[in-house]
């Protein structure tokens, strides 16, 4: 069995093509001038430039975190280009018809047709290509409901007060090394505002694509759900197959005001590198949400890509009765490394959080769950339930669990459970005896293992996630 598993872990990365698009790309390197130029291109207000420069100065004083269970060569931050945009975007297209057809083809190939008539009904998409947003669909329909959904660069011009009010309130400028870097150089990303009491009429979605060589992608997403509103937001990511590692250091901030609910789903499929660990994306992401009274934030993620993942979507449960959820499937294979999990910070009374994490390790990969559940002194009657399960496929990989539990309230209840298991020979034999080939059998077993998480995904994504997992597992069993 394990011999069979060892055999060829070669798998196709379907999104690995490169698009021939003429781009305007900054030379590599980072200093204050680069930030000034970047801010100028975006036509940003003065306070934004100041904010960036402050973040940059903080970043210079910080050191790259080394506590995660990942190992990668030192990144030379002067070897990266901090801005790249398709030339055709210089005069921003006003409609899809003006968008470079090659760009549209790229997204079509990725299964994200941007032509509205071809789109999955009910999903509005913001497509971010390298450093800029290419197009945002369904904007008018959303505007009718009062929903703002646009590139953050545009929001900075159109709604500077809203952005200024919330930017950096959940993930402060100098929060950590990668967040500080992002704050200094972020180029684009999505901005969402849902007005009071509004239930967003459709799923919102951003699709991130890194295309250009030697560029980093530093997007910033800010979602504000005003009192009593609801939004479901989806995020997908891919990148071409390249031999060099590319850095993706994003920041996502969610603000759920009183009684609001935000559902944030991610299917992350950045290029993971080849079977020898060459190339692939370094995915160093800071995602955090703040819940006011009676608010709810739910993170669901399916992580199959990236060479190295460092990511902990978190909830600060500040308001009484607020709810945080984290559902995660992380699959690593080849030489991938993932260190991912969540933080649930309970501050308010009767706050509740649920963490379900499923880690699947295959090949020579290492997959770690790292989480923090903190019950503050004021978290009267708060509850957490955590379940972390790991599945190992083959005997060359690793599965790790590092849960931190901190409690200082006697009435708060925390429960954490973790198990590890393998796809057993008995299970495989049974499936085979019933006529299934081993690959199908493994993917069935893995799908079953992840069921609790998949059912949290919006329908369109659940199908995609299941398929992604199947493709990712291809070749992991002989």
């Amino acid at each position: 069995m394990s011999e069979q598993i060892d055999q060829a872990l070669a798998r196709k990365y379907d999104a690995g093509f490169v698009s021939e698009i003429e781009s305007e790309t900054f030379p590599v390197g980072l200093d204050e001038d680069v930030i000034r130029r970047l801010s100028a291109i975006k036509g940003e207000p003065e306070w934004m430039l100041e904010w960036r420069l402050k973040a940059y100065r903080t970043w210079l004083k910080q050191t790259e975190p080394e506590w995660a269970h990942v190992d990668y060569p030192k990144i030379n931050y002067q070897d990266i280009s901090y801005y790249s945009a398709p030339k055709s975007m210089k005069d921003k297209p006003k409609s899809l018809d003006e968008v470079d057809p090659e760009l549209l083809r790229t997204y079509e190939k990725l299964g994200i047709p941007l032509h509205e008539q071809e789109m999955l009904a009910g999903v509005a998409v913001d497509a971010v290509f390298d450093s800029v947003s290419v197009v945002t669909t369904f904007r008018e329909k959303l505007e009718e409901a009062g929903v703002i959904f646009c590139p953050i660069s545009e929001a900075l011009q159109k709604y500077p007060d809203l952005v200024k009010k919330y930017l950096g309130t959940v993930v402060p400028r100098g929060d950590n090394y990668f967040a500080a870097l992002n704050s200094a150089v972020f180029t684009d990303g999505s901005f969402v505002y849902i007005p009071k009491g509004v239930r967003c009429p459709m799923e919102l979605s951003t699709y991130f694509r890194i295309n250009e060589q030697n560029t980093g992608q530093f997007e910033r997403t800010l979602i504000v759900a005003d009192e009593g509103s609801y939004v479901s937001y989806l995020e997908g990511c891919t990148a071409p197959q390249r031999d060099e590692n590319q850095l993706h250091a994003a920041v996502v901030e969610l603000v759920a005001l009183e009684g609001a609910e935000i559902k944030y789903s991610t299917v992350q499929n950045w290029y993971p590198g080849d079977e020898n660990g060459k190339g692939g994306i370094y995915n160093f992401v800071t995602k955090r949400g703040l819940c006011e009274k009676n608010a709810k934030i739910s993170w669901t993620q399916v992580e199959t890509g990236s060479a190295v993942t460092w990511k902990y979507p978190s909830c600060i449960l500040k308001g009484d009765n607020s709810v945080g959820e984290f559902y995660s499937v992380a699959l690593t294979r080849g030489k991938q490394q993932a260190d991912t999990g969540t933080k649930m910070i309970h501050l308010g009374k009767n706050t509740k959080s649920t963490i379900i994490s499923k880690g699947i390790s295959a090949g020579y990969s290492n997959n770690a769950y790292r989480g923090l559940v903190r019950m503050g002194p004021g978290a009267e009657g708060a509850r957490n339930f955590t379940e972390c399960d790991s599945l190992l496929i083959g005997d060359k990989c690793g599965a790790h669990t590092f849960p931190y539990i901190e409690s200082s309230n006697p009435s708060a209840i925390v429960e954490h459970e973790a198990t590890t298991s393998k796809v057993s020979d008995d299970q495989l034999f049974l499936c085979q005896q019933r006529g299934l080939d081993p690959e199908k059998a493994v993917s069935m077993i893995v799908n079953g293992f992840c069921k609790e998480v998949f059912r949290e995904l919006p329908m369109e994504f659940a199908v995609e996630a299941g398929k992604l997992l199947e493709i990712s597992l291809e070749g992991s069993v002989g």
Partner: protein
Amino acid sequence: MSQWLAHVIERAAAVDDWLSPVRAEALAKLKEQTWPGRRTEAWRYTSLHAVEDLSLATESSVQAEAPAIAGLDALDLVFVDGRLTTPLADLDLPEGLTIRALTDKSEAAEHVFTKVKPSHHLFGLVNDVLATQGVVIDVAQDAVIERPIRVVNFASDNVESHTRVLVSLGKNAKATVIEHGSGTGHSLNTAFAEYDIANEARLEHYRFALHQGDAIHVGGSHFKLANKSRLNSTLIGYGSQLTRLDVDIIHAGEHAHAKFNNAYLLAPKEHFDLHSTIEHAMPNGTTEENARGIIGDKAKAVFNGRIHIHRDAQKTLAELNNRNLLLSRGAQINTKPELEIYADDVQCAHGATVAEIDEEALYYLLTRGINKQMALVMLNFGFVQELVFDMPNKALADWLQPILKQRFEDMMERS
């Protein structure tokens, strides 16, 4: 840099005995160490501020007796402030058992000293270079020593001391060792014990770390298990100004079995930190660890339970369970059960809970007319008491149960 550590390094240079070559290696490592701070993972929740510039006497002439335990007929080896006060020559030892002072050169000591304890423990290195007094317990092959061996370690006010216990269990040997430490005054004691357990040998082990008040107690018990050996260990800890213990259980042979129960009861304002590491380096081993804590007002408990399954350790069964209860708003628990797994055909699980009560058990007690407050007390103390009941030595269990019960009731009252 800590003043205290600088002094340790200075004093280490003056130590000159037959172990000096080994101590020199430890000293070299110690010199490379940086003083742990908040960012040092192993000391994340425990501040060493109280030790940083500590300056205490290094000798004392205090006399103390081993505390009597009814029904326990143990061979007592008594340390007072790091001095071995029991005349070893007077001991009436059963056949197969040899007990020597660490100052006497012996094969057993050479074989065990620094060979079991991992060298990353900062205070373990301090103990390596400064613990000149210690005992070496050597149990011959096939020897079954029924009489428990108790190492009593008493720390008195205003003294710094370092003690070492080395135990070697021969093939198929059997013994019971109790490490019994106490002290309430402002003292610093490091107490490290290393156990080398040969094929098929069985060790029953207890560590009672009953330091309280201003005492600072830092120590560890470290076990290396060979093929088919068995370890049954129970650790009971109080908190003090600072108590920090490291336990390492290393499955260096196949088919070894380890059971490790530990309980900590922290009175108001105490601090207790236990790091346990289970290393499965070889296949077919089993480990069961139960950790239970009750934390009183303004006290802080830290538990870090790591299970590490190495690539070759297939067919391992390892489980760790940690339960905690906070008695008041000022109490704090920081727990981290960790799994690090590199072999696929293993069954590993851990669980950690804070403040969880079994509703069905509560209902059962209520239907018997017991009021809710009392029922909660019974259940809460019950989960620590369960580990006391589980101790193989009944005399020890009978001695400990009322002491812990009293402590718990006092804690309830003061919280």
